[in-house]
């Protein structure tokens, strides 16, 4: 069964102002969608509202029964915690295990399978802190898979991950998409978004544009999203600067 995801008019208030306003989009088939926008655009807020961590003041998130899995950013987690890779993925099974239950052979099987899918099976008994950032991120993807989620939300999965590991993760995402999983990934790297994703959602509190990359990334939309700090050079490339307040944005050209 192909998962579908529909967000209708999602509005989330934060400290009096609206962090998200009237966001609506629909994803009907296995797609890889990138959410882009400047810092503070509400990308994390969108994910959190979709998965129930924040309560929207308006709007809904609906699926056709598919489960949404939130992939934690590896930097958000205490690396010194005494858990192994296996333990971390097993946590994803809690929803299926029920209260007062232990790991069953089936759960262990699922954990192994998910670890294999992300290529981390041989690291199963390593403590989570022994892994690199990229490896940890893959483990968290495996955990979301162990939840039997067919819609994955990934908040900045490439942050703090070296380029080879990024490639590995992108390969995993390729495989997942071919298995029918919807992938929603929030990114800073507009380059990457345009190149490797099926559709883009350009977000800055409101959904400014949603659709195929070339349609979404235009001088007008960029100007609206990034507040006049985008410079459009030509038809084939764009120089985009993020908002000046951010320090880790890089300006890059697109050849």
């Amino acid at each position, binding site marked *: 069964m192909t998962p579908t995801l529909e967000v209708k008019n999602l509005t989330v208030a934060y400290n009096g102002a609206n962090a998200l306003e009237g966001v609506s989009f629909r994803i009907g088939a296995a797609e890889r969608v990138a959410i882009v926008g400047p810092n503070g655009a509400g990308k994390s807020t969108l994910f959190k509202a979709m998965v129930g961590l924040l309560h929207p003041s308006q709007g809904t998130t609906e699926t056709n029964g598919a489960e*949404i899995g939130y992939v934690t950013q590896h930097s958000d987690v*205490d690396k010194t915690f*005494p*858990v192994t890779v296996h333990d*971390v993925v097993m*946590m994803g099974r809690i929803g299926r295990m029920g209260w007062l239950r232990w790991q069953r052979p089936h759960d262990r099987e699922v954990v192994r399978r998910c670890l294999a899918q992300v290529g981390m099976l041989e690291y199963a008994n390593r403590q989570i802190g022994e892994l690199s950032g990229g490896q940890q991120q893959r483990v968290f993807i495996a955990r979301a898979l162990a939840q039997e989620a067919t819609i994955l939300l990934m908040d900045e999965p490439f942050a703090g991950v070296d380029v080879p590991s990024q490639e590995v993760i992108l390969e995993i995402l390729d495989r997942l998409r071919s298995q029918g999983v919807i992938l929603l990934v929030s990114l800073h790297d507009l380059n990457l978004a345009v190149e490797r994703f099926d559709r883009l959602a350009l977000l800055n509190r409101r959904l400014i544009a949603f659709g195929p990359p070339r349609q979404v990334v235009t001088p007008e939309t960029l100007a609206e999203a990034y507040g006049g700090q985008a410079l459009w050079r030509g038809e084939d490339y764009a120089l985009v600067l993020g908002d000046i307040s951010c320090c880790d944005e890089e300006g890059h050209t697109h050849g």
Partner: protein
Amino acid sequence: MADLMHLFLQPLSYPFMVRGLLASVMVGTLCAVIGTYVVLRGMAFFGDALAHAILPGVAGAYLLQISLFWGALIMGLLTAVAIGYVSQRGQVKEDTAIGVIFAACLALGVALLSTVQTYSVDLTHILFGDVLGVSDTDLWLTAGLGLLVLLAVVLLYKELLVISFDPILAATLRLPLNALHYLLLVLIALTVVVSLQTVGVALMVAMLVTPAATAYLLTRRLWHMMIVGAVVGAVSSVAGLYLSFHLNVASGAAVVLVCTFFFVLAFLFAPRQGVVWSWWRGRKAAHQALIEQ
């Protein structure tokens, strides 16, 4: 050899020592298991505050002539919930919330106790423990409540693990985060109340933190940490009590010093993280580099 046996067996011929040993072992084990969460979640200050905050409960129980245990229990639970609530509101940092409540309760306890001018030595007991005065009833209470706490930890192992490691995942899995958090606070409060008679208020935090910290240096998985911690806690308690018997020193203090001794050993010699191994590995690497030149 016979001397050693005598040293070991002599205290056991006194029922009060046997009771004291049983109580200490139970408390050492229980504190280490709950202490795992205290160490991993950085709640040492909370544990210390809880121990001190129980003072007005005990003083009140004195004045009302009810069992000190119930006074301690009610006060402990109240304080745990109060701290949980104030930190949640987010108006002040959790550190501040704990500090304010801690000091207020301690002051209230001291004020109440100053009106009680008899049974003065019991203040020393409250502060430093009274392991020699453990009665059979105390033992049953400790065992019963201790088992209850351990049962909760076992039954809710994976849930407590998730809320401690990744609260975001817990929320997405629709776990009742708040309820579980308060439950953990209540479990810590119960542990503290049950352990008060053995170690006393002043040294309580040591029993919660030190064996668990020692285990942390030696293990990689949570339930391993609990088991190793429990063993360290129990062994330290027994050794400490024996030491206090033969050397005529305060029992609570002796137990804590033994716990600390084990921690220092682990700190220095733990297989991966120990100071000594790191230094040795560094030397080895430098030596290697020199050879390869």
